[in-house]
Structures are given as structure tokens and as C-alpha cells.
């Protein structure tokens, strides 16, 4: 069968069209099937957003990575390697350790605490942890999420549309609409449960793609470095891309600073909340980290082999490096599967991000402010409407932003914005008793503003004639460094200073007890006392004006469900 398939050397689409399209069609059928299957098990907002906390460690580990990989990894990093050479290996310099620190320092605490307070979104977590009865933290964080996650979804749809256009020759707007329909479609059907499982499937394909491509290229030409140096010059085989002094320092800082975005990106944090048992975090972390090693090394090697095979600058659009190498090295059917993996990564990111934006609107704005008594059925229905509405808005944004490079779009306006605005508060809420709601709001505003403004800084300075020349290496490097670096620092400083100037919540010690005890111990204590010591956004709330207790279920999980889950998990009783 395979012997009858032509090698794809006749152009980007070449004779592979029917095979590539066939693979896409097969992939979409599987995707829709997963969504339909998952929708049978979904009856609460918690199921819709975090899979009812029933996602196992391997699936969690894969989906945590696949949800973040996106078009940025599959097309962007190979394109970066094609443009800069071996320095692209430094894309993992910040990401890999930052992800490990997140698993080690955030995952368990966030998982335990959000279950105890029945929270499924970061804004609700912030509100409860920071004891904010003004609603300011929830409102500002929900706004940040809507803004940057919406931009993220748009960026993924641009990438998906670009890939579809490159492969099939269709008009860009058709590719964007098709990408949007796919993303909205299966997010709409199954929510996180579908997303986590399809991410697992997609993650496996991505991983295979980044192993197979470099191995095939290696068998053809050995290591690429000599050929890269011959084609693109010695700077392409320099770890600083030929830069020295401050230019090299700020270049390395820019790559490392990408990792600062990990704690602030809710589509990663929501994976931590959704894992089935706390003890499985360790295994999930191992899976996610090994995934990253392979993916980052593989993606950079793909870009380097593209230089070696096609020559430096031979590709008009560097984003084509990965699809071109795929079509050149693989027969049609296999190429179709590999390119479907690229599309899958984009879809995977977009649907996770769409869900986070949806939960910000439905849980934090609608349910939190507009209708606190909404039923589960109503909330699930509204979640679907909002997913559709935000998805449509993202398609419109993708259409407007279709000519902006995907690498820049993601890092500057989605990843970086979330990292700077949300990240410091996530870390502080879990580790620092002194953090306050006012400090958090100030940090989010400063982080967002700095990220957006720093990205435009060189353009603005250029307009007013104040842009430092490249010879002024320090100042030039500082102005052009990746904005997340200064934005994260300023956001953190703001958080610390404003928090120290304001009063922290009173019951913070009780909150921190949750981090150091097994879940079952805390729930047992709750039983003995007869009532929860925790502010439960989904359980009972006390009206401060009347001192009346409202016992109607609020968000997603009844207290009994939490007890039952803890009892059923056997977390602290199993031997291993």
C-alpha cells in the first residue's frame, strides 16, 4: 500500500493532497467521536471544565504538555531554529525547569485547595484564598483571562488556518473558519473531559512526529551541524547565535524568560486541578517532563535539518520548515499523520484556552455576580453558549491578525500577558500567607500593562527617535528583551509591596493547613466540627448582613461528593 504512495517532493501540497486530507478527515472523525462519547458523562460545570477530577496521571501529564505546545511548538520552534540555528535549543531553557517547579510547588497545593473550596477556576480560587468580598480579584482576573485566552484561541486558529492553507491551497479565510469550527465543535461537545483525552491522543502523535523526523533525517545525513554551518554560517552553530556581551546575555534571558509564563497560564493550572488523585502528581510530572525533553530537542532538530536540506533562507516563510521537511522525508500517508499532529497541537491548545475563557465568563462573571442561584443544568447550557460565542469572536480576531507571526502573537499577547498578570498571584496565594487581594489586583494590572507596553516599546521609541543604537548593547538589549521578563518582575514587586501595605485575610493559617495535610484528615476534621471552616464557593455561604446561612448548592460539588471522592481515592490508605 505504502509503496504506491508518492514521496512528497513536488511541492508543499504536491501529490499528497488526497492522503493528507484523508488523514485530516480520519482525525476529525476520531475527535468528534471522543467528544460525543465524553458528553455522555458530563452533567456538571466541574465535569465540563476539569473533567470531574477524574483524569489519570499519564493523561494529565500528556495533556498538560499538549495543551501548551500549540502551533508555537510545532511550527514556531522549528521556524525559530531555521532562523537562528542551535540557539533555538534554548527554548527549553526556562520552560523545562519552570514546568518542573510548577509540578513540584504548585500542582498538589492547587489540587488540594481547589477541591476543598469547590473551586474549578483560578479567579474563584483567588477570591476564596484572598478572602475578597469585593469581587475585585475575581473580576480583574476573569477580565485578564478573557482577554489573553481569547487572544490565544485566535492565535491557534491563525496557525491552524495557515497550515490548512499551506497543505491544501485553500484561501486563508476558509482555513481560519475551518479551524474555528473544529475547535468550537469538540470543545462544545465534551468540555475538558474530551479535551484531556484527545490531548492524550494528540500528544502521542506530536511526540512521535518529533522523534521520527529527526531520526529519518539523521539516517540520511547524520548530524546536521556541519551542514548548518556550511549553509547558514558559523553563527547558526553558536549557542548565542554569534552574539557576544550584553546582546548574548539578553538573548539568553529572553529564551529563559519564556518559562516565567508557566504558573500564570490557566490552561496548565487547570490540568493540576483536574488530576484524579493527589499522589498521581509525581507520575504526571515525570510524563510531562519527558514529553518536553523530546519535544523541544526534536522541534529544534527539525528546524536545523530544514536548514541542512533546503538551505538558509530558501523558505519564504520559516513557518513552513516543519511541513516541508515532513513532506520531503515521509511518504504521503505518514506525512499526513504527522501534519495532522501539528494541527492537533493547535486544536488542543485552542480548546483548552477556550474552556478557560468560558469558565471565566460563566463561573466567575455570570454565576459569581449575575445569578448566584443558577442550576447546574443552566450553567452547563450557558457554558456551551459562551464557548460558541467566544469561539466565534476568536475566529474574527484570527481573521484580523492572520498576518502576524504566530510565534510573536502567542508569546507577546497571550502567554506573556497571562504569565505576568496571573503568575505571581498563583505562586503567592499558595506559598505566601501575607499576600492580599489589593496586592493581587495591583499586580495583575501592572503585569498586563507592562507586558503590552514593553512589546511596543521599541516601536514607540523608534517613533520618537529615542531607540538606543545596537552599539549601546545594554540599553538596546534591555529594550528588546522578551517583555515577560520585566513584566513578571514588576508584577511581582507590585504584589509584594502592595500586599505589605495592606491587611492580609484573617483565616490564612487555616487555609495553609490544607496544603500540609492529607485531604482526608481535613475532611475528617470538618466532620467532627459539624461544619466547614473553609469558605466554600460551591457549598454554604454566610450573608454578612443578615448572618443567615445559605445552604443551596452553588457551583459544582456538594460537600458529600468531596467526602465521597476522598474516601474513594484511598490516597492515604493504599500501600505503595
Amino acid at each position, binding site marked *: 500500500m505504502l509503496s504506491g504512495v508518492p514521496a512528497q517532493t513536488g511541492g508543499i501540497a504536491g501529490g499528497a493532497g488526497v492522503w493528507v486530507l484523508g488523514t485530516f478527515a480520519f482525525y476529525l472523525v476520531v475527535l468528534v467521536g471522543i467528544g460525543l462519547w465524553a458528553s455522555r458523562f458530563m452533567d456538571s460545570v466541574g465535569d465540563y471544565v476539569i473533567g470531574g477530577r477524574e483524569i489519570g496521571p499519564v493523561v494529565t501529564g500528556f495533556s498538560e504538555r499538549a495543551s501548551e505546545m500549540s502551533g508555537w511548538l510545532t511550527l514556531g520552534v522549528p521556524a525559530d531554529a531555521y532562523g537562528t540555528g*542551535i540557539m533555538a*535549543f534554548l527554548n527549553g531553557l526556562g520552560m523545562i*525547569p519552570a514546568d*518542573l517547579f510548577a509540578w513540584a510547588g504548585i500542582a498538589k497545593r492547587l489540587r488540594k485547595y481547589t477541591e476543598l473550596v469547590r473551586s474549578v477556576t483560578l479567579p474563584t480560587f483567588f477570591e476564596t484564598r484572598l478572602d475578597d468580598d469585593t469581587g475585585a480579584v475575581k473580576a480583574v482576573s476573569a477580565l485578564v483571562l478573557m482577554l489573553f485566552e481569547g487572544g490565544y484561541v485566535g492565535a491557534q486558529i491563525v496557525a491552524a488556518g495557515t497550515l490548512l492553507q499551506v497543505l491544501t491551497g485553500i484561501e486563508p479565510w476558509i482555513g481560519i473558519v475551518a479551524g474555528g469550527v473544529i475547535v468550537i465543535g469538540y470543545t462544545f461537545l465534551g468540555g475538558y473531559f474530551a479535551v484531556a483525552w484527545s490531548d492524550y491522543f494528540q500528544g502521542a502523535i506530536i511526540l512521535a512526529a518529533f522523534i521520527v523526523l529527526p531520526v529519518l533525517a539523521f539516517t540520511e545525513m547524520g548530524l546536521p551541524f556541519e551542514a548548518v554551518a556550511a549553509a547558514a554560517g558559523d553563527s547558526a552553530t553558536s549557542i548565542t547565535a554569534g552574539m557576544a556581551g550584553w546582546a548574548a546575555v539578553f538573548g539568553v534571558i529572553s529564551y529563559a524568560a519564556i518559562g516565567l509564563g508557566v504558573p500564570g497560564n490557566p490552561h496548565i493550572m487547570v490540568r493540576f486541578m483536574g488530576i484524579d488523585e493527589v499522589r498521581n502528581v509525581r507520575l504526571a510530572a515525570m510524563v510531562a517532563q519527558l514529553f518536553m*525533553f523530546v519535544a523541544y*530537542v526534536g522541534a529544534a532538530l527539525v528546524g536545523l535539518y530544514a536548514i541542512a536540506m533546503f538551505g538558509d533562507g530558501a523558505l519564504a516563510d520559516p513557518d513552513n520548515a516543519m511541513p516541508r521537511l515532513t513532506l520531503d522525508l515521509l511518504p504521503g500517508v505518514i506525512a499526513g499523520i504527522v501534519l495532522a499532529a501539528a494541527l492537533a497541537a493547535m486544536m488542543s491548545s485552542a480548546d483548552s484556552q477556550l474552556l478557560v475563557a468560558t469558565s471565566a465568563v460563566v463561573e466567575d462573571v455570570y454565576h459569581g455576580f449575575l445569578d448566584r442561584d443558577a442550576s447546574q443544568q443552566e450553567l452547563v447550557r450557558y457554558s456551551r453558549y459562551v464557548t460558541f460565542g467566544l469561539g466565534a469572536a476568536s475566529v474574527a480576531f484570527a481573521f484580523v491578525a492572520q498576518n502576524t507571526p504566530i510565534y510573536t502573537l502567542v508569546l507577546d499577547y497571550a502567554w506573556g500577558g497571562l504569565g505576568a498578570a496571573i503568575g505571581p498571584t498563583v505562586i503567592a496565594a499558595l506559598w505566601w500567607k501575607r499576600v492580599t487581594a489589593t496586592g493581587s489586583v495591583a499586580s495583575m494590572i501592572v503585569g498586563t500593562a507592562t507586558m503590552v507596553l514593553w512589546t511596543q516599546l521599541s516601536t514607540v521609541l523608534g517613533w520618537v527617535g529615542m531607540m538606543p543604537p545596537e552599539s549601546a548593547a545594554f540599553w538596546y538589549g534591555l529594550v528588546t528583551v522578551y517583555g515577560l521578563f520585566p513584566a513578571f518582575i514588576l508584577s511581582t514587586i507590585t504584589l509584594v509591596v502592595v500586599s505589605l501595605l495592606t491587611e492580609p485575610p484573617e483565616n490564612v493559617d487555616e487555609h495553609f493547613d490544607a496544603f500540609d495535610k492529607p485531604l482526608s484528615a481535613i475532611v475528617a476534621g470538618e466532620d467532627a466540627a459539624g461544619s466547614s471552616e473553609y469558605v466554600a464557593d460551591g457549598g454554604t455561604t454566610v450573608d454578612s448582613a443578615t448572618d443567615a446561612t445559605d445552604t443551596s448548592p452553588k457551583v459544582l460539588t456538594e460537600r458529600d461528593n468531596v467526602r465521597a471522592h476522598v474516601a474513594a481515592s484511598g490516597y492515604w490508605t493504599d500501600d505503595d
Partner: protein
Amino acid sequence: MSTLDWLGVVGPYTAFFVMLLVYYVWEGRRERAIRDRFQEENA
């Protein structure tokens, strides 16, 4: 490629891999200690 460039490529990934192994072992021990302590307190 110079030795420094090779170190720049291989060094961080090696260090990250060692960090991962340390985390995996350390986290396992920490969990076991917490579980033992919890069981003792409830004995």
C-alpha cells in the same frame, strides 16, 4: 561547533534531567513520610 557550544546545548538538558530524577525520588519520600505521620497520628 566549539566545546562551549556543545556544552550550551547538552548542559542544560542534562541538568534538567538530573533535576527531574531528584524531584521524583524526593517527592516519593516526602509523600511516604507524610502518609506515615498521618497514620501515626491517627493510630
